[in-house]
């Protein structure tokens, strides 16, 4: 008995749904050899001759030349030898197109469209059937899909064990390649490493950085007591409504345009606080000996320099010993100063001014005191010359006279550091296993980390403390 095979409309590429049989090259009943052209099929893109894969006999021509047939439709019945008419008719009536379940073998002989951009299109005519050919490692579903999509499985490398081809492999192969990467370099440096001490989700940490939320203040409600995204956003969202109702100008609100000076302060300090990586070193220094020295001065000469004057002198000497703190930061360059030019913050009616005591390490406390008094007086009168409040390698800001315990100052750019001085306070201190009282001042040094590392700033502070607590070292100059 002859083995009959269906000759069906091939599928060349994903988009092909139907084709036209242009012409039959063999007649019904005619035998042909392998490689003989059987027919010419046209899709809307190309036309191609279809060659016989194996020798055989054209048992029946089903398709009419010039007519359009869907992919998988029966075009002809071929056999390995001539077959009786009724057998062929039975085959034709039993035929079900590809995709429908059935035992019918589907034969497609489909040369690739030569100009196809589809990498998956058939490169060579290949005989195909509803079941995978023996020896080809492919799942049944993948084989079926490869027929529908026109994927040449011979060129595929399967992702399953031992290269077996999965449905996923076939479907991926049928899709156009997708470009991956290729843009500008991006930064993937972690911004949250410093928050790793907190038990928080990575997203919560990222949000904390973005919104400037202090994780120490966040109440954790996430799983296992972890700080979650919601915990951080909860604080952010609470802050928003507080800022929202900006009261409209009117009777209760007076609108005052910023003065030039105010604008300059605003600009400088916004630049500083938003672009300079500040860090803060806080320290208490004992000034009992300094106070005693001032008391002796008052007793002998009737007056004494202020604590602040002494601190300026102490800073100048500590800067001389730690030149890495006596700097300005200009872009990628650090300007190291030979002298300690100390800007002293002075509050005036119009705002903050910072006259400079130049080369303070060369001046006695008395001279520093006199200079600051003179500069402050002229600052309040608005009579400072530009060179008297510009420059400076270091700043000192003292709010002790207002009873402020401690504060952190914003760096006065381009300077590298600023010292914030709080009020002198009597504090209980432990000494020799007994409790006594000491007069303490809280100092806070704000440093620009671009130029000054923690240890460098700390050494400066240690020297400052040594000098202030042994004030005889401040005498002379």
């Amino acid at each position, binding site marked *: 008995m002859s083995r009959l095979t269906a000759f069906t409309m091939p599928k060349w590429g994903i988009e092909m749904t139907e084709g036209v049989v242009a012409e039959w090259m063999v007649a019904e009943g005619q035998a042909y050899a392998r490689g003989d052209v059987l027919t010419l099929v046209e899709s809307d893109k190309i036309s191609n001759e279809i060659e016989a894969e194996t020798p055989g006999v054209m048992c029946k021509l089903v398709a009419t030349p010039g007519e359009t047939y869907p992919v998988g439709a029966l075009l002809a019945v071929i056999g390995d030898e001539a077959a009786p008419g009724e057998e062929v008719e039975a085959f034709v009536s039993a035929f079900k197109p590809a995709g429908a379940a059935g035992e019918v073998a589907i034969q497609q002989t489909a040369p690739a469209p030569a100009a196809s951009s589809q990498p998956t299109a058939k490169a060579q005519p290949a005989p195909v059937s509803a079941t995978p050919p023996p020896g080809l490692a492919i*799942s*049944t*579903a*993948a084989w079926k899909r490869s027929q529908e999509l026109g994927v040449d499985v011979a060129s595929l490398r399967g992702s399953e064990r031992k290269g077996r081809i*999965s*449905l*996923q492999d076939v479907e991926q192969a049928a899709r156009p390649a997708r470009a991956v990467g290729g843009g500008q370099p991006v930064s993937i440096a972690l911004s949250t490493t410093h928050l790793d001490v907190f038990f928080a989700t990575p997203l919560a940490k990222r949000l904390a950085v973005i919104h400037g939320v202090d994780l120490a203040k966040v109440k954790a409600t996430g799983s296992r007591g972890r700080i979650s995204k919601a915990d951080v956003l909860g604080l952010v969202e609470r802050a928003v409504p507080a800022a929202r109702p900006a009261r409209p100008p009117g009777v209760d609100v007076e609108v005052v345009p910023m003065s030039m000076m105010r604008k300059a302060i605003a600009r400088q300090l916004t630049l500083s606080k938003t672009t300079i990586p500040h860090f803060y070193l806080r320290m208490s220094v004992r000034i009992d000996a300094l106070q005693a020295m001032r008391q002796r001065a008052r007793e002998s000469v009737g007056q004494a320099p202020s604590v602040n004057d002494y601190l300026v002198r102490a800073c100048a000497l500590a800067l001389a010993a730690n030149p890495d703190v006596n700097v300005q930061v200009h872009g990628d360059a650090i300007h190291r100063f030979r002298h300690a030019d100390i800007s002293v913050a002075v509050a005036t009616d119009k705002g903050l001014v910072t006259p400079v005591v130049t080369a303070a390490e060369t001046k006695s406390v008395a001279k520093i005191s006199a200079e600051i008094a003179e500069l402050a007086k002229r600052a309040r009168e608005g009579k400072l010359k530009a060179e008297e409040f510009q420059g400076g390698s270091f700043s000192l800001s003292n709010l002790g006279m207002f009873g402020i315990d401690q504060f952190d100052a914003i760096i006065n750019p381009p300077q590298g550091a600023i010292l914030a001085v709080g009020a002198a306070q009597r504090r209980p201190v432990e000494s020799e296993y007994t409790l006594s009282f000491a007069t303490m001042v809280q100092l806070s040094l704000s440093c620009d980390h671009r130029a000054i590392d923690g240890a460098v700033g700390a050494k400066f502070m240690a020297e400052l403390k040594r000098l202030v607590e042994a004030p005889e070292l401040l005498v002379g100059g």
Partner: protein
Amino acid sequence: MAQLTIREVINQVLHAEMERDSNLIMLGEDIVGGAGTAGGQEAIGGIWGTSTGLYDKFGAGRVIDTPISEATIIGTAAGAALAGKRAIAEIMFADFVGVCMDQIYNQVAKFRYMFGGHSTCPIVIRMAYGAGLNAAAQHSQAVYPLFTSIPGIKVVMPTTAADAKGLLTQAIRDDDPVIFLEGKMLYGVKGEVPDGEYLLPFGQARLAREGSDVSIVTCGQMVMFAEAAADAMAKDGISCDVIDIRTSSPMDEEAILDSVENTGRLVVVDESPPRCSLATDIAGLVASRAFSSLKAPIEMVTAPHTPIPFARELERAYLPNPTSIEAAARRTLGYR
């Protein structure tokens, strides 16, 4: 074809293989077991009743009661196997395997590799595993994830009487070390068993039910629950593939992937706790190799990440069951 329980099948295979191969020895705790009892040496025949009659037939030289030392059992079996014997070692409860873990995972599993392929270690380590008998946390564990993770040993767990015959015979004749896991709940399960010689190759899953809506992949004691769930759903017009993987190492990945490519939905049922388990292993395989076929997230029905409770009701709640499996399958079907 005979109707036999898995317990009887194991006993028959042991008899047949001991008969067939005089080089084969057996050893374990109380596999003879009657010494000092009124019933005589052979009174017990193993606490599971799987080694009955062997001592009488093959004698003390081939059926060896050991001291209560699992390290001794496996060490002796491994040494005998290296020296040319074949050995069947029994660890009474799989949970006791901790004390012979070096022998198993660092010696037996590595011999062939360490000796450049010049040695084999043909031993079968039989052990009863699994929950369901109120044996509490130290006598109920499903240990197969532990062994499946070790390259160099094969891991087998039959669920039907016929499979018990085919897989145990194959295990004994296999030249590599095989962990043969016998589900405690399954010893009494009866089924048709082929007569005569019957071997089943490893790494070939059994399709216990055939359907097109959901793939339920499972093994060992959970297969019967998965079948019950699938049968219940079949009444509602939902058809499930139930795949009994039979051997977790080697595992029939192709059977699993083929099924998921067909159904698009996967429920993995695993008696062990969920972390680093067979459930996550199979879910991982399907997620990476059949991602495009999935129509719903993979469902894993497992024991919780806790020790196995002793109380009957708690143990029942601990294990996957037909209801929880069906619920998971329906979740995959209801996924939008």
